[in-house]
């Protein structure tokens, strides 16, 4: 239960953001301009998360619109803006999951856009890798995307996806094993 006495008024959210004590500011104190600036910092991350889960650009754009709106509407539930990034990503991954649930007939999501890019621009020797990644389940793809593409640590991936680190590790391990089999290429240095 929220104690009303602990909540300070939101006067001048810009000052809350930039004040000298750098104290965390609450989500409900954030104005739209700050929200816009904050969210745009994570454009690339948001794209890669949604792309890894949904596999096509059209759905990614739909997901990000939906996620941003949900985030803005629920901003009062964010206790500290220092948690903005994992919070936004959590909402985005949930949005993507919702969209995936609606695709009842599809078990796996093909990486349509990646295929298109590969066929046009990429060396042919990368096609098997792309196809192999395309066979991974979305929850594995998002983990390896955050780890290998975005360069996050296991702990950061866990934080972004709101998962225990053990789950992240096991998904990564599973993904590596599957990729090794599909690519007939032993994975070096796996823990």
């Amino acid at each position, binding site marked *: 239960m929220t104690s009303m006495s602990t909540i300070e008024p939101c006067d001048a959210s810009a000052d809350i*953001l*930039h004040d*000298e004590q*750098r104290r*965390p500011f609450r989500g409900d104190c954030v*104005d*739209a*301009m700050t*929200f*816009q*600036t904050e*969210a*745009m*910092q994570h*454009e690339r991350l*948001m*794209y*890669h998360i949604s792309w890894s889960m949904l596999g096509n*650009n*059209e*759905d990614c*754009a*739909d*997901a*990000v*619109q*939906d996620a*941003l*709106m*949900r985030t*803005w509407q629920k901003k009062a539930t964010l206790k*500290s803006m*220092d*948690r903005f*990034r994992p919070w936004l990503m959590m909402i985005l991954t949930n949005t993507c999951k*919702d*969209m995936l649930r*609606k695709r009842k007939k599809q078990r796996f999501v093909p990486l*349509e*856009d*990646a295929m*298109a*890019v*590969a066929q046009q621009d*990429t*060396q042919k020797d*990368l096609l098997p*890798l*792309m196809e192999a*990644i395309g066979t991974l389940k979305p929850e594995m793809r998002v983990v390896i*995307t955050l780890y*290998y*593409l975005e*360069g996050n640590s296991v702990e950061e991936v866990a934080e972004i996806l709101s998962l225990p680190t053990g789950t992240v590790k096991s998904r990564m391990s599973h993904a590596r094993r599957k*990729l*090794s089999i599909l*690519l007939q290429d*032993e*994975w070096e*240095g796996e823990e």
Partner: protein
Amino acid sequence: MNEKDFSRKFRQITPEVPQDFHQAMKSTLSNIVRDEHNNRGEIKVGRRFSGRTLALALMIMLLLTTVAMALMNWTVFENIIGAVPQNASKIMKSNLATVTVNNVEITIKEAGYDGMSLYLQYSHRMLDMDHPVGEVGEGDGKRYLTQEDMQEYSDYKVGWWIDNIWFDGKPMDMPAGSSGTTNGTEVNGEIIESQLWRLSVEDVYLDGKVEISLPIGERQDRRAIYATKNEDGTLPLPEDGMVTFTLDTTLAQGDMIKTHPNIPTEFDTLTATVSEVVYTPIMAYINVDVDVKDEALADFIARNGDGFYGEEGELFWKYGPADVLDEWGVYSLVMVDGDGNLVLPNMREEYGYIYGGSGYSTTSLEYLFPYLDQYPEEMYLVQSHEGVLDLDHKIKVK
């Protein structure tokens, strides 16, 4: 394969952020900002048109706002701006095309161009439907589409199906700052889309009779269309699934006036100059160039540190001119006359919620003001903070 190899190859096969994703983010965030600025509880989303009806339905339920139940002239303005500008009839045309596809009557109901923006409204009417579409919202009497409505609509296999519009065969994605609403009406089976296309944002200007093609007919296989991309990456005009109409975009002589005041005003932190004012029959578009001073940025960094850091010390972003501009107040400008009196004291209540600050970059701000028969002899933009005007720093508009 080792970790490094995999990372490198993975990067090679991963697409960069595509334009439509960037546009979707930008337009959603811009609309959030604009909506907050307009102090309204409802949010209009600059739509990125897609054929994904389920996602669209969800988006509509969450985001899309108003619908004018009682139809009146030029309802596109009612839906997009919140009021009908006095000169709407000067530029608007009605009932420009009607076709029937899959037992759905598609009508281009309203369209007009003011020299900067395209205003457009079309309807899809499911002819065998014996009830109105949407649920009447509590309190406002407007018809909101439900997911079931959108599914039903989707079953007719018509509607906006690809992310482009074509002018004389040339494609264009929806520019930033554009917006759209979807709603039902009291007419059985009818869904109306109202859209504002901010063409000038993309430096697209229409002239004379223009053939406008909208992908609102029978849904087509998008992948097949994408496979036919031009060399420059744009989409050729599809042969099927389109509704085309001709709009005379010619404005009467003197209906659009451009001025370039170009008189800089010095603030402590930046220099602001109105570089262009475009007076159209619908509204005035004002562009303000801003140049953040180096010493202001240095002072900002001295007060706040070099960037914004998360709790674990990770750098979110380095502070730059945008942060100085944010602190200054990008949407703080109001219009005053030569005596320092507000030109439009109740602007949004009287003229519509679209007016005021409409977008910004690190080097410019855009403001929209309603059309007035007689603008004051002298006009300035000044900052207003909690109703207190800073008349010591007036930016010359006229």
